[in-house]
């Protein structure tokens, strides 16, 4: 068959040219389309295009209506008309001719006619009736192609009422010998089913026949129908389950002809369709689900090839498994699948993975827990769609314990979403039920209002006000909430109210007007003055002004208040805005008549139901009086506008507009429910104007306490730092160490460690998801009153202390040390520190390392500690007073370093950094420098009381070659002991940083297998070794190397000769070897591990250091340049 295809394909071009040969008219008209298109592409403005197309359309119009135009020419004209329509220019005159072409043309012309009809018309177009006869005729044609065309057009659009006319003919086609006709007939019937289900009810058994059709294509087509029908009524088709399962089994088993394979996957689209049907059938139905377990398992197993389409099948499979009655075995596999999706570097798969997670997370929150780090990473993903999906996922896992963190995190990202204005769908008010306390709630809402501003959906301020006014179960709580709101708003107004969005100002005015009496010591006059200030601001919209005036009306009392009110009402009683005028009048009158005010605006009655006389019957008397006095009868707005339109006289627009506003004013007049208020604000029609004025969309956090800092969630950090101060015993600060701490380069602003920040975030986001509270950091139970405020004191000193501890504790392993630390750990565990507090203290360790600036991202070689024998004095201190030393990090570090394999213990190694911890498993790692490779040592510490079986550690890296020291493969970790794994790392290709990702899977004696992921980053500098050579050797090598880079770097000038100082510093920090310094120039050499040299040439030039790097290895010069730059900057 492929031969045939080949032949016809090769014949195609000649065919096309043949097509244009006969008749000069044909030729010229083809080129007409060409000229048109060429003309259009040359145009520069939309206006010119419009002119050209209009001209074209006129010429087409002339030709189509001319009786001399042949069908052949007509066909060509239609193509031109299609082109014009596609560009958005209406060619309605050609519609009738398209129908005519479909009616009268030969098969070829008919095809264009049908095409034009299906592009131009729609189901309800009246001209379509003219087509019915043509379709009828073509359905009965003996020419297969004409039948096909008719079926295609029928499935695209067909008038609903005319279906009975052609239904028998289409039904008949279900028995047609040609499978393509049967297939199209099935789809046409499906279309009928969609637009008029009752008309095809009688042929349901014919669908069944189609399902059993010997041609898989027809069967596939029928699945569209079944998917739809089962969606509507799953109960009715349960009996078909075994059939669908059998079909899927056959497909998966490769029983279909090879033709159906796509990239050697058997009929993938068919599989997807079947899986969807199965998931619908198996939902909430155990017995039906049981039928399909086997085939689902099979599908999962078979879909292993690494092609896009197999992932599509896998995804459907996973969704199906999670939809039907659960089976643990399958769930496990599906969970693994989801893991693969989420972790995939392919962004499409990641997206689907997140979608799948969102789908399953309610059934299996632990799954989200497993992937928490990935989810955190996705929150910062550059792709908005991924971010959105992640947010959706986070919302599904919101609970009382993590609501603070989730909402804060979302708010940080929030302003991005204002752009697409779809975000606040995510912020349902019912999250209040999770809010930890009043202050938090009010502050969160403040941020929402200030950031969301005027783009926010109006129902958010509404429901917020409703919440405030209706209150909750406890009167006292309500009072506190309102009081807090009042306080917070007064302080906001005292700040810079001009920066607040209009909506927020409206909320503030309402709350102040309503509740400021709650704060006894707050004088009404003061509030009045604050409010009056709002009125004077330039950018306050008139809508906001009317809210403010209303608040003032509620507030004015006392002499000073009165004077302010009088002043304001005088200004606005002559305002052009009718609403404002109305408000000003109200203010004026009510401020003078207190009795009336108390009656009209009773205090704290916001939640009392109001009776509204919407027919305004109380005005009847007034109206009849006015009518009697000769006033014109009232006309509704639409009537007036009609009249206006008819008159087409002067535009009376302003009056037309002012009407709804003044109508809305009636509803704001008294203290009514806020919902009503904002309905009116929506009505008033200047909300669009508002959003223009609303100011910038950047985060405005004035007056809002910062909960999130660059370091992550500040709340946790504060106690951490505090405890660091308290708990570090002073005896440790021996003069000896003081000196050491001083000599250490000071880090004025501690750089946060992104990885740990993420982990911290993760533990707070995912808290409460697992039954074990191991990740519980944000437990609601521990009240920390000042947790929103961060203390700025002494990160420097605490970091110094941290350094001290870890420095003093790195020592050569000895049995004494071993014993020592074991004891310490023991005592830690036995001293009834529960798991969560352990976690907390290990967070302390994180905090310390963070403050140190020794992020694992930026592990510079200064961190590498020579394994010099440690100071015994210190160890004694620790030994002597283990109780006072509550920081487990030190002992752990010490203890871990003692676990370093003997052959590595003599070599320099990096600081041991924690990788991750889950339940009772803590992973830490360090790297040991060897000449020709790096050894990555992973410590697995099991803090539980039971042994962990079958620990399997898998590491991988894009840029590094990771090889396991195979006799070192860990099988189990006994309780409270450390297992060590070693990996050799060599460089595949240079990079600024190398990332090793790993997954550790393990299993407790009882319980399901678990896995944790982690990543370990190390800088290029860890792989750099000095290269000793002579100047001559340097010279010859320099010429051989092809990859180079040049850059000017800053010099160090601290008294000495700048070039020497800079080179010395680089030599020290980056392990380079200075070959020679000649005057203003210096040559330096180093190598990447043992065999990849890199040469550096430096020259002093205009106060900077011109550096030229050369190497035979691509990318190496660039990466090294980066580190040189960094090293100099850090200095």
């Amino acid at each position, binding site marked *: 068959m492929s031969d045939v295809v080949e032949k016809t394909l090769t014949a195609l071009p000649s065919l096309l040219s043949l097509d244009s040969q006969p008749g000069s008219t044909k030729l010229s008209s083809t080129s007409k389309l060409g000229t048109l298109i060429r003309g259009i592409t040359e145009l520069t403005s939309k206006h010119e295009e419009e002119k050209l197309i209009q001209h074209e359309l006129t010429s087409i119009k002339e030709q189509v209506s001319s009786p001399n135009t042949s069908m052949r020419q007509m066909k060509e004209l239609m193509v031109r008309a299609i082109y014009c329509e596609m560009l958005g220019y209406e060619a309605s005159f050609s519609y009738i001719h398209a129908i005519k072409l479909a009616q009268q043309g030969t098969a070829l012309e008919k095809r264009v006619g049908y095409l034009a009809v299906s592009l131009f018309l729609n189901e309800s177009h009246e001209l379509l009736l003219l087509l019915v006869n043509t379709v009828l005729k073509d359905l009965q044609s003996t020419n*297969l192609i004409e039948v*096909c065309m008719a079926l295609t057009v029928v499935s695209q659009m067909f008038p609903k009422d005319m279906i009975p006319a052609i239904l028998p003919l289409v039904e008949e086609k279900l028995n047609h010998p040609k499978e393509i006709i049967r297939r199209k007939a099935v789809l046409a019937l499906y279309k009928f089913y969609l637009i008029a289900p009752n008309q095809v009810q009688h042929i349901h058994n014919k669908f069944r026949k189609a399902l059993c059709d010997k041609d898989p294509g027809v069967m596939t087509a029928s699945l569209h129908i079944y998917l739809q029908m089962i969606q509507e009524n799953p109960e009715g088709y349960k009996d078909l389950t075994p059939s669908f399962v059998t079909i899927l089994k056959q497909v998966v088993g490769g029983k279909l002809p090879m033709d159906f394979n796509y990239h050697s996957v058997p009929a993938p689209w068919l599989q997807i369709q079947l899986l969807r049907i199965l998931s619908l059938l198996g939902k909430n139905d155990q017995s039906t689900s049981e039928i399909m377990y086997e085939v689902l398992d099979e599908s999962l197993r078979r879909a292993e090839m690494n092609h896009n389409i197999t992932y599509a099948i896998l995804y459907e499979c996973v969704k199906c498994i999670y939809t039907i009655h659960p089976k643990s075995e399958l769930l496990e596999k599906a969970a693994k699948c989801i893991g693969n999706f989420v972790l995939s570097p392919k962004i499409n798969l990641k997206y689907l993975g997140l979608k799948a997670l969102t789908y399953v997370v309610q059934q299996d929150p632990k799954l989200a827990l497993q992937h928490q780090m990935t989810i955190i990473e996705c929150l910062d993903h550059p792709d908005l769609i*991924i971010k959105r999906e992640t947010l959706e996922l986070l919302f599904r896992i919101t609970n009382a314990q993590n609501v603070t963190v989730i909402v804060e995190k979302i708010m940080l990202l929030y302003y991005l979403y204002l752009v*697409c204005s779809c975000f606040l769908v995510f912020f349902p008010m019912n999250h209040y039920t999770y809010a930890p306390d009043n202050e938090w709630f009010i502050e969160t809402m403040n941020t929402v209002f200030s950031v969301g501003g005027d783009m926010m959906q109006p129902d958010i301020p509404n429901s917020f006000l409703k919440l405030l006014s209706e209150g909750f179960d406890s009167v006292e709580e309500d009072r506190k909430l309102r009081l807090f709101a009042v306080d917070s708003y007064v302080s906001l107004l005292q700040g810079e109210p001009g920066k607040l969005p209009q909506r927020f100002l409206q909320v503030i005015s309402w709350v102040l007007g309503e509740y400021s009496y709650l704060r006894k010591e707050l004088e009404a006059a003061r509030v009045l003055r604050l409010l009056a200030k709002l009125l004077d601001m330039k950018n306050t919209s008139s809508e906001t002004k009317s809210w403010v005036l209303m608040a003032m009306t509620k507030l004015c009392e006392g002499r000073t208040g009165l004077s302010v009110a009088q002043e304001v009402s005088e200004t606005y009683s002559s305002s052009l805005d009718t609403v404002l005028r109305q408000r000003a009048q109200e203010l004026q009158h009510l401020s003078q008549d207190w009795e009336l005010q108390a009656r009209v605006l009773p205090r704290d009655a916001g939640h009392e139901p109001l009776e509204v006389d919407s027919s305004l019957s109380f005005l009847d008397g007034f109206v009849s009086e006015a009518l009697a006095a000769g006033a014109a009868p009232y006309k509704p707005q639409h009537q007036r506008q009609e009249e206006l339109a008819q008159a087409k006289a002067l535009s009376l627009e302003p009056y037309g507009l002012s009407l709804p506003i003044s109508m809305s004013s009636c509803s704001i007049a008294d203290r009514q429910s806020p919902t009503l208020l904002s309905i009116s604000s929506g009505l008033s029609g200047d909300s669009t104007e508002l959003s223009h004025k609303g100011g910038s969309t950047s985060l405005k956090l004035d007056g809002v306490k910062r909960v999130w800092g660059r370091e992550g969630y500040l709340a946790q950090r504060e106690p951490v730092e505090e405890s660091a101060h308290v708990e570090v015993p002073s005896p440790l600060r021996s003069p000896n160490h003081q000196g050491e701490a001083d000599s250490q380069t000071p880090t004025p602003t501690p750089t946060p460690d992104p990885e740990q920040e993420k982990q911290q975030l993760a533990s707070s986001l995912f808290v409460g998801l697992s039954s074990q509270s191991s990740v519980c950091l944000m437990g609601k139970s521990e009240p920390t009153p000042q947790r929103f405020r961060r203390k700025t004191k002494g990160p420097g000193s605490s970091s110094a202390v941290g350094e001290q501890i870890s420095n003093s504790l790195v020592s050569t392993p000895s049995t004494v040390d071993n014993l020592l630390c074991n004891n310490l750990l023991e005592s830690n565990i036995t001293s009834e520190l529960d798991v969560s507090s352990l976690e907390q203290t290990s967070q302390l360790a994180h905090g310390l390392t963070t403050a140190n600036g020794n992020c694992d991202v930026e592990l510079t070689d200064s961190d590498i500690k020579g394994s010099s024998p440690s100071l015994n004095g210190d160890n004694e201190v620790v030994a002597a007073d283990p109780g006072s030393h509550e920081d487990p990090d030190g002992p752990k570090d010490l203890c871990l370093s003692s676990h370093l394999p003997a052959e590595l213990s003599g070599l320099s190694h990096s600081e041991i950094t924690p990788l991750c911890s889950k339940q009772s498993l803590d992973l830490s790692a360090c790297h040991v420098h060897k000449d020709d490779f790096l050894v990555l040592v992973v410590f697995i510490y099991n803090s539980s009381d039971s042994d962990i079986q079958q620990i399997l550690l898998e590491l991988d890296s894009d840029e590094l070659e990771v090889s396991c020291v195979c006799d070192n493969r860990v099988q189990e970790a006994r309780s409270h002991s450390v297992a060590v794994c070693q990996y050799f790392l060599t460089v595949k290709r240079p990079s600024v940083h190398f990332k090793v990702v790993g997954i550790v899977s393990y299993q407790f004696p009882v319980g399901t297998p678990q896995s944790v992921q982690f990543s370990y980053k190390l800088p290029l500098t860890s792989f750099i070794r000095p290269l000793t050579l002579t100047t001559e050797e340097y010279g010859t090598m320099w010429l051989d190397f092809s990859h180079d880079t040049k850059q000017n770097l800053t010099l160090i000038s601290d008294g000495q000769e700048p070039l020497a100082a800079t080179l010395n510093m680089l030599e020290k920090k980056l392990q380079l070897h200075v070959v020679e310094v000649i005057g203003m120039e210096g040559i330096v050499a180093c190598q990447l591990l043992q065999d990849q040299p890199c040469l550096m040439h430096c020259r002093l030039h205009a106060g900077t250091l011109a550096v030229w790097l050369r190497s035979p290895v691509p990318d190496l010069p660039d990466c090294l340049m980066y580190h040189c730059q960094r090293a100099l900057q850090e200095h």
Partner: protein
Amino acid sequence: MIKAILIFNNHGKPRLSKFYEHYNEDTEQQIIRETFHLVSKRDENVCNFLEGGMLIGGSDYKLIYRHYATLYFVFCVDSSESELGILDLIQVFVETLDKCFENVCELDLIFHVDKVHNILAEMVMGGMVLETNMNEIITQVDAQNKMEKSEVTSVLA
């Protein structure tokens, strides 16, 4: 169900638009513009799915697109379609075009809009996926072309 199939170039000029649901002319143009606006803003290394188009569909619908050289191929589908499935369907469509036009380029789509529509009609019918096998699609298109040929020759004779 597939709601619409749009092809436009890097400058947003429509090269093919096929709607399987009725919208009026203006809305169609707006949809094309909006879609182009959404799609063209995206980097190369982000996912091929887009949600949140306002005009077409709303929340249930998503855009699945691929970018080839100068052309964007966008399918607007509802939740009953598999995202990755459609992504591969676009690939099949483009490969088919490539076979039919021998190294398809933007000009082919401009000058042979009707042929492109015919090919598409063999793949997607009334918004439903009809055929996903490239060879089968080409066979059908060829059968029609043969008829064309016989007609032409009869005219010539």
